[in-house]
Every structure is written in C-alpha cells, then in structure tokens.
C-alpha cells in the first residue's frame, strides 16, 4: 500500500494499465511532455513514448473523434479533456457516435474509449472551470458515467473504465484532487494522507463499475450523493448529530439501484445531493428511482440539495456551492417532515 492523493492514484491507474496492455494510449491537451495541467499524466510520455502518450491539438471534437477511431482499430484510448467545461465541442462525437456505435452496427463495431475530465467547483475557477455536467451525460444511453470521491476508488474505477468495452465518461472532482473537502473553505486544507481511502495499492486492482458504496453507515436517514459532496454529507451528519447513512453512488450510469434502495428501505428517509444545478439534474433520476423502489418505506418526502440554477458565479462561490449549511438544512428538513 502507498499513500496517494487523487492525482497520483489516477496517474498510477494509467501506469498500471499502460504497462499491462500495450493497446492503452493516452491523448489530450498538454498531457504528454508537460504531464497535464493537473499533472495526472506526468511521467507517462517519458516512460511509454510519444506514440502512446500524445499531445493533442486543442480540439475536443478532434480528440474524442480520433479516440473513437483508434478504439475501432484495436487501441484502448484514454482521452483527457482539460476541464469538463470544455467537453462540449466533443459532445456530438460522444452522443452521436461513441454512445451508439455498438447499437447501430449490431455489435460489430465498438470503441472502448475512456474520457477523463476534471469537474466541479470550489477552486475559484469561475464559470468556465467549475461545472458539473454529469447529468448531461447520464442522459445519454450507451455510455457509462463515473465520478469517484477518493483516491482508492479513483484508481480502481479508472482501471475498470479502461478495461470496459463500453465507453466511459470519467469525472474527476478537482476540488478533492489533493485532499477531502468537507465544504468549509475557512478550514485549513486537509491532505489524503490521513484518510483511509488515501491508502492505495501500487499495483493492479479494480473497483467494479456499477457499484455504489456505503461511505458512512447510519440508521436515521440516507444521503445519496457522489464526488466532493460525499465528504460534505459525512461532515453534515456529524454536525447535525443525525445518524445518516451516506451512499456514494460512484457509477452514476449504470446505477446500482439495490444498494441505494436497501439503504433507504432501512432508514425510511432520503436526501439527494449534488453540486450540479438542480433543474433536470441527475438527482431527479435518483429521486424517481427511490420513489419507485421505496415508496412504502418512505417516512418523509425525498428532498434534494443541489447547486442553484445559475451559472457558477466567481464571487459567490460559497453561496453557490451546496456546503455544510445547506446539507445540514437538508438533513433537518427530511428529519422534521412527517
């Protein structure tokens, strides 16, 4: 076991897979010589060569389109999009091609592309470095959507994503690259060093796609969330003294309905939280699913905590970010409801 932050864990996942499988190639803006603006691919080009770690032109549509072609021709591309906020020029390639290739060719063609991209706010990045567009991707059938909340999962899920023959969009909450974040920007930054999920095996392992995890066991209320907000939810459970069970969705699509439903059936109460905007957000799918699965066990209406329905405002980052206050208020709201 080694101590790793999320960046090191992601780098290690690349390293392990490039070493095991010569068909794994990496491409993206600044990923090669420089090692990525967040350093997630640092050292890979030196180790595996310029034919396997490719500095791409600034063209997200080109990166994803070319990755699809490479995948069709037997490679296993891992494409980095520098920020999730810049993935949209590649959206047509994802929706019209990557997601449907297998279906429309009756399984004769497919492309096992993994698209990694940093997402989320809390870094004073303004509206073009803070978005959480995962809900746009979960709405597209034929691609898997993943968002880890810690280094251990990041590495295991990324390896599983690279091995998956289905395309995966892999969101990395950049606020927790260097340490868990409980939603209070006033507190000094914490590193992954003291966190159990900062213990990461150096070699190969997977965290299977499609499995949620109980991040904190509890009896009174279930908080279903993912990414940075897993840590906010755990902190809010402590702050409110409510015995919350925090479920980390990890793979947003396909969804592990059983783990979520079992938890809500046990607690009878459900709060859903994400950083992304609320309206038509991924939380709406979660709420509908829980309502269907757990209707007779629910003791209170399902409630949501989410980003406001505005672009991410630079100056009002902490009024925008669904932090400890809003998470705690959400917990109380669900506990007080009859």
């Amino acid at each position, binding site marked *: 076991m080694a101590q790793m932050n999320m960046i090191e864990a992601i780098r290690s996942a690349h390293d392990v897979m490039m070493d095991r499988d010569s068909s794994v190639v990496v491409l993206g803006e600044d990923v090669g010589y420089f090692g990525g603006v967040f350093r997630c691919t640092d050292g890979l080009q030196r180790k595996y060569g310029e034919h396997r770690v490719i500095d791409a032109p600034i063209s997200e549509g080109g990166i994803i389109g070319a990755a699809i072609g490479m995948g069709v021709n037997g490679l296993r591309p891992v494409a980095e999009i520098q920020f999730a906020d810049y993935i949209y020029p590649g959206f047509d390639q994802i929706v019209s091609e990557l997601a449907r290739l297998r279906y429309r060719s009756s399984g004769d063609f497919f492309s096992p592309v993994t698209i990694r991209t940093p997402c989320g706010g809390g870094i004073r990045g303004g509206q073009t470095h803070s978005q959480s567009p995962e809900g746009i991707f979960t709405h597209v059938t034929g691609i898997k959507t993943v968002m880890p909340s810690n280094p251990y999962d990041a590495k295991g899920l990324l390896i599983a994503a690279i091995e998956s023959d289905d395309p995966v969009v892999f969101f990395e909450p950049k606020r927790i690259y260097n340490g868990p974040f409980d939603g209070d920007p006033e507190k000094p930054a914490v590193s992954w060093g003291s966190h159990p999920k900062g213990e990461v095996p150096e070699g190969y392992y997977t965290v299977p796609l499609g499995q949620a995890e109980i991040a904190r066991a509890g009896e009174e209320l279930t908080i279903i969330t993912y990414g940075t907000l897993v840590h906010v939810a755990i902190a809010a459970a402590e702050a409110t003294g409510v015995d919350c069970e925090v479920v980390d969705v990890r793979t947003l699509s396909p969804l592990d309905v059983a783990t979520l439903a079992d938890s809500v059936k046990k607690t009878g109460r459900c709060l859903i939280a994400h950083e992304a905007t609320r309206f038509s957000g991924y939380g709406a799918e979660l709420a509908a699913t829980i309502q269907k699965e757990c209707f007779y066990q629910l003791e209170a209406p399902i409630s949501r905590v989410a980003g406001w329905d505005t672009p991410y405002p*630079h100056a009002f980052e902490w009024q925008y970010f669904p932090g400890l206050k809003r998470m705690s208020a959400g917990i109380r709201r669900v506990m007080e409801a009859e």
Partner: protein
Amino acid sequence: MNSKSRLQIPRPTARPGEKPDFSYLDLSPAGSIDKPPIDARTRDIEHLSGGLVRVLDEDHSAKGAWNPNFDANQLQVGLRWMLLNRVFDERMWQIQRQGRISFYMQATGEEAVSIAQGMALRPGDMCFPSYRNQGLFMYRGVKLVDMMCQCLSNTRDMCQGRQLPIMYHTKTGNVFSVSGNLGTQYPHAVGWAMASAIKGEDHIAASWVGDGTTAEADFHHALTFAAVYQAPVILNVVNNQWAISTFQGTAAGQRRAFAARGLGLGIPGIRVDGNDFLAVYSASLWAADRARRGGGPTLIELVTYRGGPHSTSDDPSKYRPKDEWLSFPLGDPIERLKQHMIAEGHWSDARHESLVDELRTEVTAAWKEAQKHGTMTEGPWLDPATMFDDVFAEAPRNLDSQRRRMLEVERGE
C-alpha cells in the same frame, strides 16, 4: 519515403535546458513585401500568407510600402498604450501573486496586437477578443479602475462577480464579452459582420484566437461562413509560438503558415511581424479597408512570442527554455517601437523612463481607487442575491424561490 506509414510527432526545437532555436521561423527583410491594392484578387496575393510583412528594420528605420508613415504624435500614442498594457499586466500579476485576485493572464510581448489593431479599426467596428486582448479594452476606453474592479469581482465589477478575472466586456466600446472557451467567438464575429452587411452598414468585425485555438472546429466554421458570404471581418491568429505547453507545431504551424489556412476557401492571408507595431497597423488597416469596401474577409497571422507564463496557474520552465524569449528574432514590440522613435529623433531614454513612471503612477492610483469598491477580504460586498439576475431576461419561479432560499441560508435559517 518509408515502407510503412508512420506517426509524426511534432516537437519544439528546444525544451528546458536546451538552446533556444528559432531557425524554423521564416523571416523576410523589412520592406521586402509588396503592398497590393485592396481590391486585389485572392489568387494574386497568395504570397502574402507565406512572407512576413515587416516595416521596422534592424537599424530601427521604417521601410517599404507597408510603412504607415506615422507622425511623432501617432507613434507616441501607440507607444503609450503598449506601455500601459505592459505596466498594467506587471502590476496585476504581482497583485495575483499576493493573493489579492484569484487569477490573471498577461499579454507580455504581444502588446502590438491589441494596440496597433485597435488603432487601425474604427470605433463602430466590433471586436471579439481573446483573453490576451486587454490592450484593446484599454484603448477602447475602459478605465483601468474598471478593469481592476472586474478582476476583484467587487461592487464596481462590470460582470457583477460572475466571471473570472480578465473576462472583461464593454458594450459602449464595442468589445464583446471575453469567453473562457477557446474559439467560440470566431463565428460570432463572422455573424456580426454578416449582420452589418445585411443591414447595409459599413462597420466591420474583428476577432482574435491563438495559434493553438486554430485546431478548434469553431475556427473552421468561422472561415467557412466568412468565405461563403464574403463577410466584412478580420480574422486574426495570434501566433505566440505556444499554447500552454504545446508549441505551434501541435496545431500544424510548422507545415504551413497559419495565414494560409483560409486560402483553400479563397480567403486571403497576411503573415505579419506581430512585434512590429507599424506593420501590424498597416496590414490591419489594409484588411479593414478591403472589408469595408466589400472585399470580404482577411486572415491575419501575427507572429509574436508569449513572453510570460500562459497564466498565473502555469509554470513554463517545465516545458520551454527559460530564456527563450530573449532569442526570439522579432524581439519585443515596445522596445522596437521605442528604438525607432529614438532613431527618428522623436524620443529619448529619459522621456521613456518618465513615461513609464507616469504610467506606473496611473496604475497605482487606479488600484487604490479600485480597492475602495471592495477586495477579496474587505467590503463593500456585492449582494449575493444578484447572482440570480440575468440568467434569463426575467427570473422564472425556480430562480426566484432559490434566491429567497439562498438568503435564508445566509441568515442562518
């Protein structure tokens, strides 16, 4: 030829620790490129995209047909604005380093682009800038204090705290809102220009992207529309050799000049010494006149060098030689104009020094004033309730109720 296909890996000529090498840059002597009439046919002026239009010579004289023959006053105006751009950038960089703004980007070494092109355009012409065109905002009348307030996201911020520093805009000055997404505004410039033609007006549009951004599809969308409709627009590629860590070859700049990107569509290209204030002005005025008289679009490549880090988040020592800028054969635009003015007898080192001092004082005064409208740590503060404004022309119900909810949370309810 090989017996097998092979992958080309574009590599810069020098990496950290190596000797800078700009031998790949094709240069033409000052004054050597002809200046065609503005109604020349594209096919007759293809050579302009391969040469390098230069006016300022090594001996600091101004040469050739592209010399705009500026008088002392015009030269001083240009020098003053370029220097202001530089001095402002230096100060804002320091301010970011002190943690007093969250982010900053300089235009160091590229000041001639914004200032000379700003001077070549008319006030009614619409500019669609990149994030390195702060000089254009200054030249078009945005006060330094207002630019600083934007960077501070304070109560006088033109963006009301909604945007990262440097994402300025000026409606009255006709400079569009800077976008963080690369290349997206290139087609906007073309559309704006088409509208100008549809309305029968003689305003033109201009837009700027970097060498790296030419790879984006939006770049090509813009060129296609500009060519098809012969839109009155100037499309600029600021080739500062680097796009964060990748050199211009990663956008295929080593194969053929960016100025030639439009030739296949029939768009004339001019490759210009981007650090030659006089050449940039002249080439831009030529393209503006051509567009205004129905001659359609021009693609201008401005060959320059990004003198500083990409942004305050960047560390260029990891990917390029530290002193590379010093070896750049086209030098520094400010120094070159200054030397020309001295050679012409219009200027002196002493006057230069006192101008720098004067501009520093101006910037210091603006910073003092800006802070009165709020800083990152001290009020006055913007009202967070305003974050819900302007999402729509009229706030729908979900936003109204979220605004109320946000205020309750802030009050601790």
